[in-house]
């Protein structure tokens, strides 16, 4: 459209451009145009001038924005997995695993996580992390998730032998479990175990690294490794909670104090076996060298502290933690304290694993509670305020007399008193020799 042009070359007309300019002179159609003074349509506004001719830019903008938004959503939903694989059902990141196995050729295999109702017996490992060197297996860490069994004796004997050793120290905080420099276990919370009935054993996540009782451990390294195992255990538990769609996650565990490292002690005297007054290692059962015994007790359970939930909200920061099990290994130092193990199991789920053994014992034990003796395993249960408590004795082999049976009456009596269960007695028969 014809536009008048002023003397400086600028188009004349109502001025709507942005720059500071001298306002143009009011428009007057030049006489020479010979047109009627019809006001021209206003030139396109500022915004329209910018966008006009640039629809492609706008489209690109929207597309980029949409992609950005999608990316944010995908990132938030966590489906963009990290480049290195998380092991054992996505629960152990490379950083966590590096605390458990040193650098090298790492291979891992895992079986699918079974549904909680089914369970694998005999602790067959479900996830293995292996370090190879020149095709030789140098180290192995295995992880497991299973419900402890009461029907076969495997858990009461073999699982407890490894995982309820007096080397195990209780974890602190809201998670229930124990850890040493070679083994770790934690209980899946009841809210994630379906509907546990009374007497149901717990479902546990476990980690095993190397032999259960390592020899010649250097203290600082044992402590470091134990912390690494505790950390991996919590990650494993959280991973399982996630896989099962259960709510809640445990926080990273604090470093465990040096005071909770297991220690072998020479026995103070046969009248106070395992640090509990009144527990007597008698000549019968322990023999003449009962004064040369050594013991190791669950760390943190030394004091006269009752086990039940000392790490709940009422506990002070320095108070000992408890997983509901107090273990004591008795024997000779050079023999890995393998003579006798005494356990007080206040955790109801774990107690159930042992008490089921009582269905068909070789010898029944009578008294305030009920119990049985089956050679290598002796179990006596009583009903305390917290529920069923199992007093357990395990011995590898015995001569003419069973140390377990010899110590049981004083053990049960003293321990019941210590945990606030009142008077509990047991009558032990003389075994035919």
């Amino acid at each position, binding site marked *: 459209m014809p536009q008048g042009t002023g003397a400086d*070359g600028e188009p004349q007309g109502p001025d709507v451009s942005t720059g500071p300019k001298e306002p143009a002179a009011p428009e007057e159609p030049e006489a020479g145009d010979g047109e009627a003074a019809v006001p021209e349509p206003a030139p396109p506004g500022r915004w329209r001038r910018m966008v006009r001719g640039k629809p492609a830019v706008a489209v690109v*903008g929207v597309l*980029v*924005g949409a992609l950005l938004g999608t990316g944010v959503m995908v990132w938030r939903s966590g489906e963009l997995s990290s480049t290195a694989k998380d092991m054992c059902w996505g629960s152990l990141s490379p950083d966590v695993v590096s605390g458990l196995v040193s650098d090298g050729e790492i291979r891992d295999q895992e079986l699918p996580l079974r549904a909680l109702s089914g369970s694998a017996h005999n602790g067959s490992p479900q996830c293995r992390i292996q370090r190879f060197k020149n095709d030789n297996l140098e180290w192995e860490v295995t992880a497991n998730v299973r419900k402890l069994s009461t029907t076969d004796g495997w858990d009461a004997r073999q699982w407890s032998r490894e995982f309820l050793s007096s080397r195990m120290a209780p974890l602190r905080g809201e998670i229930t479990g124990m850890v040493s420099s070679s083994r770790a276990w934690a209980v899946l919370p*009841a*809210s994630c175990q379906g509907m546990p009935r009374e007497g149901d054993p717990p479902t546990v996540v476990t980690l095993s690294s190397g032999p259960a009782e390592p020899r010649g451990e250097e203290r600082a390294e044992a402590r470091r490794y134990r912390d690494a195992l505790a950390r991996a255990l919590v990650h494993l538990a959280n991973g399982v909670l996630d896989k099962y769609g*259960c709510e809640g996650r445990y926080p990273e565990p604090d470093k465990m104090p040096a005071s909770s490292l297991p220690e072998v002690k020479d026995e103070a005297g046969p009248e106070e076996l395992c640090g509990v007054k009144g527990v007597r290692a008698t000549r019968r059962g322990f023999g003449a060298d009962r004064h040369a015994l050594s013991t190791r007790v669950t760390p943190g359970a030394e004091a006269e502290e009752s086990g039940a939930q000392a790490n709940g909200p*009422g506990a002070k920061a320095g108070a000992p933690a408890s997983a509901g099990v107090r273990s004591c290994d008795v024997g000779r130092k050079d023999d890995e304290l393998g003579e006798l193990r005494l356990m007080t199991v206040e955790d109801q789920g774990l107690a159930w694993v042992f008490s089921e053994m009582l269905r068909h014992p070789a010898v029944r034990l009578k008294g305030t509670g009920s119990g049985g003796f089956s050679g290598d395993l002796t179990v006596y249960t009583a*009903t305390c305020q917290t529920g069923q408590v199992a007093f357990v004795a395990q011995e590898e082999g015995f001569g003419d007399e069973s140390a377990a049976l010899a110590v049981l009456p004083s053990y049960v009596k003293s321990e019941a008193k210590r945990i606030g269960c*009142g008077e509990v007695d047991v009558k032990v028969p003389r075994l035919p020799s």
Partner: protein
Amino acid sequence: MAESVGPDGEPEKDIARTTRHRTALVLLLALVVLGAATLVTKVSSGAWSSTKRSFCWGAWQEGSDPEVLGDAITDGDTFARSGKESAPPAHGERATCSVRLTTTVERDGSDDEPGGSDPGGSDGGLDDGSDVGSGDGSDDGSDEGLDEGDSRSDGESSGSTEETAEYKRVNAEFGPVPRGAAQRRAWLMEFLDARAAPLPEGLPGVVGKDRGMLVLPRECDSGGLPSVVTVRGAGDMPSIGGEQDVADLLLSLANTARAKAGCDAGKPSRVTVPLRGSERDDTFYMGDSTCRVPGLRLAAGREDHYNVTVGAVEKDLQTCSIEDQESVRAPVPAGQFVMTSRPRFTALFTGLSGEAAPGKGWRGKGRIDGGNGLVTAECRGRPTVFFLQLDDRLEKKATPDSRRVFARAVNSVAERVDCPAVAPST
């Protein structure tokens, strides 16, 4: 301002203007990008559902667990959801709200009895406030054109009619615990029920499948009494959902109530770890050691149908509830034993007894009155409450008598938690 003319004769834009235009263009582009990103993010995260309502002063959102808030469609029936709420929580005052699911059922006009559509169940004395379903206007759907009760009169012929039946209801409350002794005991019986397990991470509350309770921080105290929030399922099926669901409802309500009542200065009420789940124990046994507490001797006869539930048994909390299940459909709470040294829990017993000892030889202060016993004594440096209540019928079964039963129970529990004897030995 000088302006150059380009080779095609068109005036070239001034340089400054071009730069400004370019800047504005870039800005516009950035805005478009941001806008699109936000749009996509919001739409895919579902935060843009304009039809979702909220309840209880905004604490609970439709479309989440548990069932009372979720989208429940069962057997072809569609559930309608409605809510009520009183004035918002205010310091020292009681506020109530509720959410319910109702279903409308077509009934053949001829042979049904005219019946109330609310199938019984307790309402818990809920204040009637305004109907609410905020966010979407006040239409709550369920009562549209329907009567709650009879939908037709006798003699009306044929024609199917619709009845509204209440399927699920959750009642919630905020406020100080009841002041009067009898009401307080009833409240304790209900909300420290052994079926509700304590919350983790030191939160002073309990959750079960049909109820939850949280004691609010000291800032919310009023008149010397702690303020609490409670949720309670009501109706024929009082179960609300899983413990996690109840905890979620309870905590979101607590935070909203604290904000409205102006006592939310501290940390929000929150749980991150898994709930422990109630390791409780149901038993029909009632004898020398009811609740597994030696000395709590209640002689049950053959005609009795009591159910005992042992809840928490910890160093600082022990709960046990006794229920009369003579009428299986409507069990009646009959008794309760509680021990606690958790500070916010002990506050729940404030004002129930005076400063005197409960009797000669007792340590601490309290009162024993028929089937009700309360004593607060120092244990390991902390005030510890021991509390027993038995209804008249149970009180008669206390052997040798309720006073001595209380004394023996208190001492048994005191011994368990390494506390010197509180009651005289009897």
